[in-house]
């Protein structure tokens, strides 16, 4: 099956099995085995990617669902201004995720900041998919709140 999609800013036409999980497409077809894990559906949360700006587990997205959509992995996201906002939020709170969950947590933070979610319960619920205990819940909430503030200031400056 031929699938047109945009992965990390590149518009591609991929010839794939239609039910192949996105995590395997990224590892096998795109060669991105550094950031995307394939847990075979155990919901470890480490295969998080952004699909049209929303955080999703790549192991749960079949190939036919990415037709015409934009997929962003941490590999390309870390070079963006949005990632710099998240890094600033990490610095201002004084807590950083560990190397294992850095990519997935950062992408989920981006999804929450982009959506402007401030409700602590919703923030913790979204982040509960990452089971790594390297961050306290209070720090996670503060990072999202700080990230929203930084993003808002940047948008005001730009306009």
């Amino acid at each position, binding site marked *: 099956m031929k699938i047109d999609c945009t992965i990390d800013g590149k518009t591609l036409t991929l010839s794939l099995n239609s*039910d192949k999980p996105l995590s395997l497409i990224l590892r096998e077809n795109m060669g991105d085995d550094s950031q995307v894990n394939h847990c075979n559906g155990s919901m470890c949360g480490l295969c998080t990617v952004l699909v049209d700006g929303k955080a999703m587990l790549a192991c*749960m997205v079949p190939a036919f669902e990415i037709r015409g959509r934009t997929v962003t992995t941490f590999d390309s996201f870390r070079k963006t201004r949005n990632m710099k906002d998240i890094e600033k939020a990490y610095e201002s709170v004084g807590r950083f995720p560990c190397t294992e969950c850095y990519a997935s947590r950062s992408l989920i933070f981006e999804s929450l900041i982009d959506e402007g979610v401030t409700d602590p319960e919703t923030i913790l619920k979204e982040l509960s998919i990452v089971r790594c205990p390297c961050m306290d819940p209070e720090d996670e909430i503060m990072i999202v709140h700080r990230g929203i503030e930084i993003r808002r200031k940047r948008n005001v400056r730009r306009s």
Partner: protein
Amino acid sequence: MYEGLSSPNIHTPKSLGEYASIILHYPTSSLWAGGTFIMTRPDSYPSRMMNAEIVYLGDVEELHRFQRNDRFAEFGAMVTLDGILNTGKAVLPRVLIDNILTIGSRLITRRATIGGTICTKNFTTSFPGTLLVLDATAEVKFIKKKRLHSRWMQITRLLDRNGRIQLPPQGIISRVRIAFSEKNCQYFREIGSFMLDPENSVAVAFAATLDQDILINPKIAFTYPSHGVCYSRDIDSIFSSLRFPLDDSEIHTLESMIFTFIESSFPNISPLQRTRTSGIVHQIIDSLNEMTLTASPDVPAGYSR
């Protein structure tokens, strides 16, 4: 590694009429809603078992509709669990909200659909049990004489003898109607992970009205993911014959009656599931006892919260 595997054909109907014509052409095709259950199976890919035809329901506009009046809410089968929380958190029954919240991260609830959670193959999620205690009804669409028919059915009527949801051949659930419950005792508890440890997890949904120390119209459903939903009117009538608070001997008798029924329906539940079920039953009874004992004399018991 994947040599010899053929890529399944994906059909994306835009309406239920189109769905019907696809199903008539490919009667053995697999239905795909959110995919959260299918994709988390260890053998989901590469799989020789996967059907050559997949019907993806995500583009069927009718299945995304949501409507609500002062008596009930009606969800299209493709409404996501996150969508349900966003649209009706304040008005929907507490037991349903608690069930959705136990699923976990929004990364899952954003994809899982209400229709998909009811119609999983060879597996039972905690949703049929919850919908059952809420007296929910579902609109079932099925093909008969090459035409698409529909019928509203209670969730209890969809359960077969083994406690699994059984739809007519080539049938789908298109809408689910949930009445706004006025029951003042609603309880949902899930122990263990349904997706990761189905052999040891259990969920119990309970809804009743506690009025002057007795339960009116109680319903309780026990769900064991790899076995099915255990529901009986007999257990409900035992609950309605009780006068709260219960003492230890009454709790023990009630528990043994419940287990007699569960073990007659599902003789193979694991010892851990048994222990967990017993713990949840005790919690429910403790909270009912507490509600009865803390009710003020002027206000009927159960309306104190």
